[in-house]
């Protein structure tokens, strides 16, 4: 049989993996299978420029359709893989087609978490994940609309920001006491809350949604404390669920994501995984993570492609994330952990330390400094909180010191 890599999932990770297989010199067949109708696209702008109406949704596509054939990638869109038979090395599609593989890469991504009890067919109620979701929502976001965003995570807050720019009246409801509860320490998240409040977005934190009311079309959102917020539009953004079922059914280990090692290998022979769907060990942070980010979708997929092509490449990067909201570029490197020591350097840059080592940095319009912070996290050297907080000490100088001390035995 011809050497063939089959990639299941044609999102950003799947697309980047196909591209990187060719860049790594892989000469076998590459087959990329995706359930959505589109060629691979990146999602960041779906909650930003597309919603604002600055760009068409198709601008998110990574390459035009012709690119795939021209690079020897067979792209099947609108095709669902039903099962994997790892012993016979075959994937089976919903149409009953059987496709042999030499190596398999799972980039099945994640799907939106449904809000329990949310009515199925109420006009004006949206989730945001796909290109079509973004287009549908953009079409309804017109000036004067009253929007309630359920979920104060990054997606919800970006939707709130874009909707405000479109002239909507926006309320964000978050059941936890603070916004971004899962990803940021409370005192850093408070900075984001103040950004939204300053721009006139109404925030309701610490209260769950009781029900979405309406008859044919949404009319209001009722909160558990009895409050009722009038709504013409509702966007539910309460997180995603990794699409692990295909791998699990085939017998792969799964624990909050498909378990992979640093070479992106699952517990099944010749089956790899990359992107949102993986739970992987991060050697810099020395812990397991599952990351829903642009960086991870791209770079873990590229690492996986190199490993599939026989060029061993461990995936080891400090997690990095950006969000553009209300004219502010928020960037974070590292991960938030309970009990971190928080140190501010001015009002726009915050650090999280554990055991005297930097594990997290969050910047508001501080991209250059965040980049230095990434180096400091990588160095894993002990840092003085006083010097981190002192704007007179250049972060770049701290990087030089930390990398020198890290290389000293």
């Amino acid at each position, binding site marked *: 049989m011809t050497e063939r890599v089959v990639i299941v999932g044609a999102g950003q990770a799947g697309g980047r993996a196909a591209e990187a297989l060719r860049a790594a010199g892989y000469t076998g067949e590459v087959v990329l299978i995706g359930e959505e109708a589109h060629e691979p696209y*990146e999602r960041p702008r779906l909650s930003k420029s597309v919603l604002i109406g600055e760009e068409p949704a198709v601008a998110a596509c990574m390459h035009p359709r012709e690119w795939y054939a021209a690079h020897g990638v067979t792209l099947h869109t609108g095709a669902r893989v039903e099962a994997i038979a790892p012993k016979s090395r075959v994937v089976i599609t919903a149409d009953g087609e059987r496709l042999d593989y030499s190596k398999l890469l799972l980039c099945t991504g994640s799907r939106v978490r449904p809000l329990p009890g949310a009515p199925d067919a109420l006009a004006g109620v949206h989730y945001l994940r796909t290109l079509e979701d973004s287009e549908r929502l953009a079409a309804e976001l017109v000036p004067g609309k009253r929007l309630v965003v359920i979920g104060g995570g990054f997606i919800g807050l970006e939707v709130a920001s874009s909707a405000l720019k479109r002239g909507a009246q926006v309320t964000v409801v978050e059941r936890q006491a603070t916004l971004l509860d899962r990803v940021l320490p409370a005192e850093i998240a408070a900075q984001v809350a103040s950004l939204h409040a300053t721009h006139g977005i109404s925030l309701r934190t610490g209260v769950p949604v009781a029900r979405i009311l309406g008859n044919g079309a949404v009319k209001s959102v009722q909160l558990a404390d009895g409050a009722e917020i009038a709504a013409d539009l509702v966007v539910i953004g309460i997180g995603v669920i990794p699409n692990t079922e295909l791998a699990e059914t085939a017998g792969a280990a799964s624990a909050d994501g498909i378990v992979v090692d640093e070479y992106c290998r699952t517990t099944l022979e010749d089956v790899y995984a990359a992107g949102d769907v993986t739970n992987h060990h991060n050697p810099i942070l020395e812990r397991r993570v599952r990351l829903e980010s*642009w960086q991870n979708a*791209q770079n873990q997929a590229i690492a996986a492609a190199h490993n599939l092509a026989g060029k061993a490449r461990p995936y080891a990067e400090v997690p*990095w994330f*950006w969000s*553009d909201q209300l004219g502010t*570029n928020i960037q974070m490197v590292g991960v938030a952990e309970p009990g971190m020591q928080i140190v501010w350097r001015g009002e726009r840059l915050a650090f999280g330390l554990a055991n005297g080592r930097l594990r997290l940095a969050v910047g508001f319009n*501080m*991209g*250059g400094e*965040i*980049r*230095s912070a990434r180096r400091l996290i990588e160095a894993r050297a002990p840092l003085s909180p006083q010097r981190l907080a002192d704007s007179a000490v250049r972060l*770049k100088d701290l990087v030089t010191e930390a990398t020198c001390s890290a290389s000293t035995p």
Partner: protein
Amino acid sequence: MGWHEVPGAHALGEDEAMGVVLNERPVALVRTGGELHALHNVCTHQFALLSDGYVEDGCIECPLHQGKFDLRTGAPKAPPVTEPVRVYAVKTENGKVYVDLDD
């Protein structure tokens, strides 16, 4: 048109960038490896000043989304940037730094 002096360029340290406006055009001046480079200061991906970015390994990294440009050629070196940024010639004469806007 032609050569424009960059005031304050002597203060630029190694691996540092500064943003200036020359003839109404935003320009980033960067010193790395002892050499000076000049490039259009606005990222080709979204609006951000490259002079606020990180200089490393002969590249400047956009502060917004970490796309990278080669300082010598302006070529895109890391996603999400795909379009090159314009670069300009630089010369130093009598301790003064000049950029050729070539317009």
